[in-house]
């Protein structure tokens, strides 16, 4: 069965709710009959089977994540979502001060099995429905962060996240959902996968080599992973061989996989959709430098958004988000110089 990410997540959530009556969903517009199943159709129709466990909320992000936190402390397994990742910022106290810290503050006695889902990506909506918030949360101990770039991973990681006893924040990309109907996005990239029938999971903390190569290791998540694969494709004809790694989990990082690849290629480039300042690339890049400086043939390279908010103008947005051509150009420059 071939599914897009939205459908795969829906199926995974349905399965987890059927398996465990402690699992419930909470969010805005997620189960309104005649509505659209959340901003990107992920929970569409789930209320038909689980009316009491699909909790529609007021527009109250503090309330959503507080509710998830409190319910998790009482042994439930909430899946809380925001319509746009940006809205997580409204709930920062609940996410960062409460959900992430309560177990540690309790001396390891409490468990916080909360799944938080947040769509990210710069997609024609201006600066406040655009941010890629991964770096904010990578600096927050206590939260595991996953970012599936394919439907197969979305399904496997969602199952792992729900079954995990720690808080897991899942970033999903608006252009990868494959949402249909009125919620379809323009500029969508196909992230659908053949989905096996069996109850598989994708372990948290394990990355994957999406494409093998010899010259440069490109590390990228979500949409940037797909753009990096496109860049690798372009470069192949020019005799440049790129290895593309999809970390799939951003915290904890699968550092072994990354280092193994960089030992082979000697060159590393991190591609990210968020601004370069204090970004994912900074964290991964420094880790590589700390662990295997002697293997590096070239300085660590970052391709990222500029250090500005996302612009609306479609012309500027295209300059803002790293495009496959720009990624390829940077790889060429790296190969020429080093």
């Amino acid at each position, binding site marked *: 069965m071939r599914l897009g990410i939205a459908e795969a997540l829906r199926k995974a959530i349905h399965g987890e709710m059927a398996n465990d009556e402690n699992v*419930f969903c909470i969010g805005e517009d997620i189960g309104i009959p005649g509505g659209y199943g959340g901003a990107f159709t992920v929970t569409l129709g789930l209320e038909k089977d689980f009316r*009491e*466990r699909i*909790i529609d*909320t*007021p527009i*109250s*992000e*503090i*309330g959503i*994540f*507080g*509710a*998830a*936190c*409190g*319910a*998790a*402390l*009482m*042994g*439930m397994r*909430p899946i809380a979502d925001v319509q746009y990742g940006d809205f997580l910022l409204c709930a920062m*106290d*609940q996410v960062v*001060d*409460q959900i992430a810290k*309560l*177990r*540690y*503050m*309790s*001396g*390891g*006695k*409490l*468990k916080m099995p909360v799944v938080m889902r947040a769509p990210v990506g710069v997609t024609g909506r201006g600066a406040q429905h655009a941010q890629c918030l991964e770096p904010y949360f990578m600096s927050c*101990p*206590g939260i*595991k962060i996953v970012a599936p770039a394919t439907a197969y991973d979305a399904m496997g990681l969602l199952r792992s996240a729900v079954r*995990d*006893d*720690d808080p897991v924040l899942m970033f999903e990309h608006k252009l990868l959902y494959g949402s249909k109907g009125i919620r379809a996005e323009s500029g969508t990239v196909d992230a659908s996968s053949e989905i096996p029938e069996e109850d598989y999971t994708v372990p948290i*903390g394990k990355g994957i080599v999406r494409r093998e190569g010899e010259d440069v290791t490109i590390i990228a998540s979500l949409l940037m992973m797909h753009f990096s694969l496109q860049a690798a494709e372009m470069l192949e004809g020019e005799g440049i061989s790129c290895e593309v790694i999809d970390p799939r989990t951003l*915290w*904890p*990082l699968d*550092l072994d996989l990354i280092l193994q690849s960089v030992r082979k290629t000697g060159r590393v480039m991190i591609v990210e959709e968020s601004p370069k300042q204090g970004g994912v690339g900074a964290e991964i890049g420094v880790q590589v430098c700390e662990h295997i400086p002697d293997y590096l043939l070239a300085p660590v390279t970052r391709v990222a958004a500029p250090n500005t908010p996302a612009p609306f103008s479609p012309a500027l947005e295209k300059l803002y988000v790293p495009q496959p051509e720009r990624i390829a150009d940077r790889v060429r420059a790296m190969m020429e110089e080093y």
Partner: protein
Amino acid sequence: MKHNEMMKSLGKEALEGMLRRMLEIRQFEEKIRFLFLEGKMPGTVHQYIGMEACAVGVCTALEEDDVIASTHRPHGHAIARGISMDSIMGELYGKTTGCCGGKGGSMHVGDLSKGMLPAIAIVGGNLPIVMGMGLAFKIRKEPRVAVSFFGDGASNEGAFHEALNMASVYGVPALFVCENNRYGASTSVKRVMRIEHVADRAAAYGMRGDRADGMDVLDVYAHAREAVSLARKGEGPTLLELETFRLCGHSRRDPNNYMTQEEKEHWQKRDPIPFFEKLLREGKYMTEKEIADLKEAVELSVVQAIESGQQSPEPDPEVLFEGLYVNMEVPR
């Protein structure tokens, strides 16, 4: 409310228990105040002196599997909920015997296995969580009640609004207890609120609002008992405002110069402990001697808790990296 009827229904043992808890809180707070001023204790403290009737009155109305959540001023709630003074003191000293193993400190004392979430020190932060605990009870149809303690200051936070609205919309079994002690740190409630009573805000959420005398433990108990009973019966949450006062500073070295002398004297005369003792003596539930003996016993247990806290071992350095994730090591 008639004190005599209330005391009769509670009985001697329960009444003595309530006085004991109030005395424990008072002595605990007074003794650690000096330890702090002498520089013999780490960290900071926010004390509950004068507010004892609030925590004890509400907690007396709860069942064992109900859950409370507190604030940056949590010692009184922890003692009232029955968490041992040894483990609270251990936590204040940051020792292994602390109720959070030394990881929480004064502002995070609590023990969920004893019905109290480690305290939430962000003002207003516990209200959405309590709403969520109540939501879990409702989804599972468990006859439990979740209780949030917070101050007048928290009622000006956005979290208060979101939590109370959602609690009312879902009809969760929760009790929101506003301990209105007239000041948010040094700021008088009159400077930051244009209404007289926090309880009036309940109307904005279609929620039941109620008020009690926070200096009278029996009045607090009576109002809390009613609210808890309604919540447990599925009749929704209550915002219960307790009118009270801090007979101490906001935190460890605060001489509360922002309060007027008249105000301090007025509330000092309303100290909830002598008031309750008088009721117990007049109602012939306790004699002068019994009260004196109880005070002595409580003092001894506080002194023992301090010694226990001081002598307990410091956490092992490896503990720094423990207790963050359930099934993974902290990446280093």
